[in-house]
């Protein structure tokens, strides 16, 4: 009981960041555009899931599960929409909704400003995101997919590294 109370106290000391107007929308649209167009020219860039990183970042920063999951849903549905007819609406939407919720929930309890924490959390969320996508494909879409490959592990690390720098860049969009 006391522990729970302490956590709340701790939560109350964690700063909830606010962003400049249009920062979230702009960052989301840029991430989606990058995700949609850059791999056309740089195939390896498809390894980076910028919409996921945006979801994680704003979830950790806003620290509001409701806004975090709604943001993740919107980003995910937009990503689905941009992924072509073979990807049904909701595939990434579900995954990013969950990630947005978890990121917001964790951001409300932990200090996620440290690059190492961001790196670790990104690796975890990336893996969780892939797991949800695979589960959705297997269970709901009856599509076979492998659970783990070296490529996925490398992608997790790459995304985590990108996240460290991206998150630092996005920190500049916060209101001081």
């Amino acid at each position: 009981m006391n522990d729970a109370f302490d956590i709340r106290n701790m939560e109350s000391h964690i700063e909830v960041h606010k962003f400049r107007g249009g920062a979230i929308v702009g960052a989301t649209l840029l991430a989606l555009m990058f995700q949609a167009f850059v791999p056309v020219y740089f195939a390896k860039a498809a390894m980076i899931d910028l919409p996921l990183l945006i979801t994680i970042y704003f979830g950790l920063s806003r620290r509001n599960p409701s806004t975090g999951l709604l943001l993740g849903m919107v980003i995910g549905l937009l990503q689905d929409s941009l992924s072509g007819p073979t990807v049904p609406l909701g595939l990434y939407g579900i995954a990013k909704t969950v990630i947005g919720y978890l990121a917001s929930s964790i951001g409300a309890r932990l200090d996620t400003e440290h690059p190492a924490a961001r790196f670790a959390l990104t690796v975890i969320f990336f893996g969780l995101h892939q797991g949800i996508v695979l589960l959705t494909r297997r269970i709901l879409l009856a599509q076979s997919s492998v659970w783990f490959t070296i490529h996925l592990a490398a992608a997790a690390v790459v995304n985590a590294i990108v996240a460290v720098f991206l998150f630092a860049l996005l920190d500049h969009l916060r209101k001081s």
Partner: protein
Amino acid sequence: MPGIPSRHKSIFLLAGVVLLQILLLALQIKRDSEGRLIRVWTVGAFSPFERAGNHGIGHIRETWRHYFALQNASRENEQLRRENDELKMQVNQLQSKANEADRLALLLNFHKSHENVPMLGARVIATSAGTASATIMLDRGSKDHIKKNMGVITPEGVVGKIVEVYDNTSEVLLLTDKDSGVGAMLGNSRVQSPVGGAGEPLLVMKYVANDDVVNIGERVVTSGMDKIFPRDLPIGTITDIKAGNPFKSIRIRPSANLERLEEVIVLLTLQPLQMMNQETETAKPSAAKPSASVASKPVAETAKAPVSGAAAKPAQAPVAPAPVPAAANAASTVKPE
């Protein structure tokens, strides 16, 4: 969301949003063999309840049918039980009639094969009241021209003789009675000796010398010497032989089932009879009585052969024609001579 703690609002929101997207997925996905995913899910979600409902309704229907809807079952069961009892009785009656028909058929065949012998069929209506005597009561009496000392037989063999005659009934002394006796001879050696009862199921042949060859299983037939029974009617089969002084002690099992008699034949004559047919004429000569043209086969066996009327020696005519017993009318036609 009123009533939901603020800490859990986001969880419910998450669940709702994810659920909506799952439904969105379901609306889009169309599986090759099962149609749209939403349909698959809907069917999958409802089918267990449908199966459960169907199963439950089936149970309810069976329960209703087997337990609650059985209000008339007891009455029907009682009615069926009564019908079953009636049918069992009918089956028993029919079985009895079939057995009776078989017995009457034997009597008829016997009578047909001995058309020259006056006979009267009679039904056994009673037996002796005590164990001191072995008698039966017939449903025929003096009105049917039955007289004392007339022989009584069945197709299987000798039964006994009439000892009392009343208007409508008569009494027969069975061979097994200790006071009974019949002229007999061995079927093979033709050695003659009277056979009498001993008050027990087996008969006794008393006067066969120790020197005579007698075998167990040998047939014993009537000799005709008692002037009651014609020759060669089967009496029984030897079951036990003991040496005695000066005669052997021979025990015979009666050919006729004297303990379960229902219909019998009364020989309506007091004169010596000869029941002869073609087989008896061709039989080998008797060692005991070479002049007698008798066969070693029992009458019951020879009864199937045609009767040779020329060979039969007509007996003295009895009295007026006897009526046919109602119960054995087919088998006991009377032919007076």
